[in-house]
């Protein structure tokens, strides 16, 4: 329990400082703003409560986009890692493209995707998947590469086909790496969802933020941000739990010496 105390105290201090700074108009005065533009944590909290049904319905839209995009990213990212692992030709051909795909500014191409695919779920899923598959693929590939080179040899002497070695040795060995990649993907998925909704949407927390911002309802903006963070933290926590439950053997078997 002790390890919770330090961060809890820090959060409490930061929130308290923000509360006081907002209440005494320190920030607003410094920026020469109207005080209502700088909500205190208590204002955000009351917005979280009074706007709860609005936030919940939009959070549900965003959560579905995030889960759908993540599912695509994880499936595609893992399949890509397996194919690149199995074929060195594919690896040499695809790897530079993979890296290049991450240099594309998503925020810039998001509007184009909306022009091409419309306001439906399609472009949102595509954008989220695009920002999320990369950490999954790269981490899983690292996991495959970290497999003790003696193990595939041993499997050959135990009559294993290439597929059996992949299924019984390489995939379990890479699983902790894959889950690390998925945790990173979860964190960026929420960011991707907001970009996607800003590019064109009729609902979702990103959409809510845009609308609230244009009507200067800053407390609602912060409330939506808090919910987005909670979604990301919740998904991250679920994956961390999965990591401990299904990949308890962890990384680095290779470092273990005889």
């Amino acid at each position, binding site marked *: 329990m002790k390890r919770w105390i330090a961060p809890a105290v820090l959060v409490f201090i930061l929130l308290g400082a923000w509360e006081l700074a907002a209440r005494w108009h320190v920030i607003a005065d410094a920026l020469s703003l109207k005080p209502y533009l700088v909500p205190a944590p208590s204002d955000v909290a009351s917005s979280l409560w009074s706007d709860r049904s609005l936030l919940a319905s939009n959070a549900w839209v965003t959560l579905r986009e995030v889960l759908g995009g993540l599912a695509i990213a994880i499936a595609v990212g893992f399949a890509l890692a397996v194919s690149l692992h199995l074929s060195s030709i594919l690896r040499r051909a695809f790897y530079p493209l993979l890296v290049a795909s991450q240099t594309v500014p998503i925020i810039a191409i998001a509007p184009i995707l909306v022009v091409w695919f419309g306001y439906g779920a399609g472009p949102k899923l595509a954008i989220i998947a695009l920002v999320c598959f990369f950490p999954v693929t790269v981490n899983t590939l690292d996991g495959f590469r970290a497999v*003790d080179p*003696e*193990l595939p*040899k*041993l*499997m*050959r*002497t*135990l*009559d*294993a*086909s290439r597929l*059996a070695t992949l299924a*019984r*040795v390489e995939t*379990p060995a890479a699983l902790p790496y894959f889950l690390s990649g998925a945790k990173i993907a979860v964190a960026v998925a929420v960011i991707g969802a907001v970009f996607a909704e800003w590019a064109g949407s009729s609902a979702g927390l990103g959409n809510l933020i845009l609308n609230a911002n244009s009507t200067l309802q800053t407390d609602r903006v912060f409330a939506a941000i808090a919910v987005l963070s909670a979604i990301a933290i919740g998904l991250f926590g679920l994956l961390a739990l999965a990591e401990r439950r299904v990949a308890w*053997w962890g990384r680095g*078997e290779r470092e273990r*010496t*005889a």
Partner: protein
Amino acid sequence: MHTTPEAPLAEPPSLTRPDAEAAQGTVDGSARGQALEVAGVGHSFGELQAIERVDLAAREGEVVGVVGPSGCGKSTLLELIAGLREPAVGQIAVEGESDADRRLARCAYMPQRDLLLPWLRAIDNAALALRNRGVPRRAARRAAAPLFDRFGLAGFESARPSELSGGMRQRVAFLRTLLAGKPVLLLDEPFAGLDAITRAEMQEWLAGALLDGGRTAVLVTHDVEEALYLSDRVVVLSPRPARVIAELTGPAPRMTPRRDAVTSLAFVEARERALAALAGGRR
């Protein structure tokens, strides 16, 4: 498909290289066939010459020890025999088959480290070869279970490797090798990672296990005593690049307790000759 390690082995066809056999002087013309023959094998990795020339033979059921200084190419020799690599020069035949894939089908290889899969229970690690051949999990476990009783692992079937001691892990690795159901066992420094006491215990245990199974085995080690105690015959290799510098017919004391065996006069003499050969090989 072997589903039990006790599957009777077909009589291997005899090798048609009497000259090589004569040069070895190990074939006694008995009814038992030649299980393994390594003739004039050399191997290099790029510039690095690992094995200069090695000749080696093992009759069916014979345990041949291979001793040599660390890094002399002993592990490479086992990988060559197992069919994991093709030798640059020379011939290797396992039960008369010299094709690498056919050797692979006839050799079970026990690596230096136990290489147990941490996510599998001990029994599933032991039965890995059966699973690889498509045997359902339950049937594979049924085949492995009796060996756990026989080899002092009863009660540890569902333990994870991380819950086992070093000696037990090594036993599970040996069972995995046995359950591969192959006629020839290749053991690479099986006890290198163990402390002295566990190591002595495990040597006694392996002596019993080898007697029990009656399988042909090549045991690679840098420990002269271990080789002499466990083998019918010991081949001494020079430092890299490896060549055979001595061959000793050991006192074959596997049936006696280790402490009595290693202190017998014949054993001590054989050990001194082996050590002298190793020292001579170093020059």
